[in-house]
């Protein structure tokens, strides 16, 4: 079995076998990432394909300053953001105060299957979905998100609160629909 360094070296040289192995090792994890940012599964696969091409082309520049997993995830997220950028019109949806959510509100997601959760996230509007992913899952602050997306911090917060509101509503709908309450 190829070690990580050998794999990176082989991919950097353009060896197709090494590229295939790297793809097989990481495609499922990264597919899950892409599916959260995409509107649909085919779109997620497009992002995955584009992201892997960028990874293979950029591996020559990988300096082992971070873990390979983290580096690849970051490339995939950037690819997803670029993919979404044309569609993003991040106007403030609602005021922060209007979200009506308590900060410490704990929700139970254990009753939901992963595909259900992904479907719920994919149903979010583009702007809300991106900000939700960046803030809630990746852990970026609103200031960072604002810089990444070229929006104001307030817009990021508004989008996030809107996402929270929509997610809560969708979770409730699913619970009722499938009798998970």
């Amino acid at each position: 079995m190829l070690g990580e360094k050998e794999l990176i070296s082989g991919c950097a040289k353009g060896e197709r076998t090494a590229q295939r192995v790297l793809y097989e090792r990481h495609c499922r994890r990264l597919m899950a990432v892409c599916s959260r940012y995409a509107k649909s599964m085919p779109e997620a696969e497009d992002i995955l394909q584009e992201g892997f091409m960028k990874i293979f082309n950029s591996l020559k520049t990988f300096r082992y300053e971070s873990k390979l997993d983290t580096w690849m995830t970051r490339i995939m997220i950037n690819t997803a953001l670029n993919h979404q950028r044309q569609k993003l019109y991040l106007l403030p949806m609602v005021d922060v105060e209007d979200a009506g959510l308590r900060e410490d509100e704990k929700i139970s997601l254990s009753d939901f299957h992963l595909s259900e959760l992904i479907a719920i996230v994919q149903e979010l509007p583009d702007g809300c979905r991106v900000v939700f992913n960046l803030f809630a899952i990746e852990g970026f602050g609103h200031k960072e998100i604002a810089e990444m997306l070229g929006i104001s911090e307030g817009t990021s917060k508004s989008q996030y609160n809107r996402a929270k509101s929509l997610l809560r509503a969708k979770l409730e709908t699913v619970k009722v629909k499938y009798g998970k309450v």
Partner: protein
Amino acid sequence: MGKFEQSWKEAFEGTELSPSDSVWVNINRDLAAAEGETMKKRIVFYQRIAAASVLFALLIGSLGIYRWNDNRGQIAQNKTLENALPSVGKEKDIVNKEDRKANSALSDKGNLSQGNERTESVNEITSPKSTSGLGLNVSKINSKTSAAIKNDKNLIKKSTSQDLNQSIVIGNEITENKNFSSYQDQNQNAMAFVDLGELELLPIPEIHEGPKMVEIIRILPAIPGAFMVHNEKKTVHEQVWASVTAAAGSYNPNINSYSNYSSFSASQMNSGSNSSSVVGSSYSYGMLAGVRVAKRIVLQSGIQYLNQSINSTSNISSPTSLDQVAFALVNNSPASSVTTPYAINSANEFVSVPVQAGYLFIDRKMGLQLNTGVSTEFFLRNTLSDPSGQRQSYSQGAGQDSPYRSVNFSGLLSSEVSYKLGDRYRVSIVPGFHYSFSPVLKPTYNSSGNPFVWDVGFRFRYIFR
């Protein structure tokens, strides 16, 4: 981070989803296309280098030919002048003859080097009464002065009056021959034939009380370049040498599309994979021996290994080996089933025996040579391989049953820009063009064009003598 975010993060942590198989197929195709693009860029680079080198060689060659012709014209012109001069200077012949007589008379009598007569002459020469002041002119004497030889005392005076072509300058004062220019005008042509070495000069050590520093200046006539003795530095020409050579470049099979690699069901092919012209790569290496057969003509021959390959994609179903692809390729027949496109590489290998004649435009430390010739190429094998390693390679050798011609002939044209290192070595860059006179496949099989190669080679030559 609040509890809401924490819940979602935990829900997605470590999750995995399987993408469809088409993702890797598309990535594989994109990677193959990117490699092809990189190869194309390299090929364009090699082509530009080769084209620029050939143009440079042609330019230098043209200049060389122009200068060579120019020199030939100049030499011919000078020969004409040489032939014409005796007739032009018939009158001057008499003068020359008399001049010779005068010289011999001077020499025989020793009138300027012995006895009192010489002393008298010298006294007169150094005397302020001399017509030329402090200066003394000993001339090559023309017909007028030849009469004066008999009268030693008057020799110098008369000789200084005119028609001089040599001067002795004493001290810092230079005696100017006022009449020199008129003499030059009159005897311009004849002067070319004056043998200055025959003239006897005044024996300077004998001069009494003369200035200590003496310089002798010869006023030389304008002798045409053709009469000058050229001490051309003899170049030691290389006669026999051996060289190792390696070259790389672009290989064009001279077909617009490698449709044979696909199963002729275009709808199942990825668009673009077989729409552009296929250009591959070529490399060769080997040994050559060379011999100079004339001053500027050389012959070179040797043995080389030649590899010409192309990358393409195929959708012919050939799950374990590429034999089906090879069959479709050479027989021009559709495959029974198709699959998702995959990359393949086809490489033809030859042993080549080139024979080239070269013309040396520049044969110095820096050399420029134009080579042309033919090569006999013995087919070794064609190998189809799958770069992904999923399918086994398939090789087809030469022979009666093989679809490939066992022997091919190609035309060669190259320029060789070289630089000599020391006495025994020479390195050179060789941009060249290689054109096959026939397709690699036999006529009964799939027809294709005559392939050609643009490449740039490097040679390292060892000079035996």
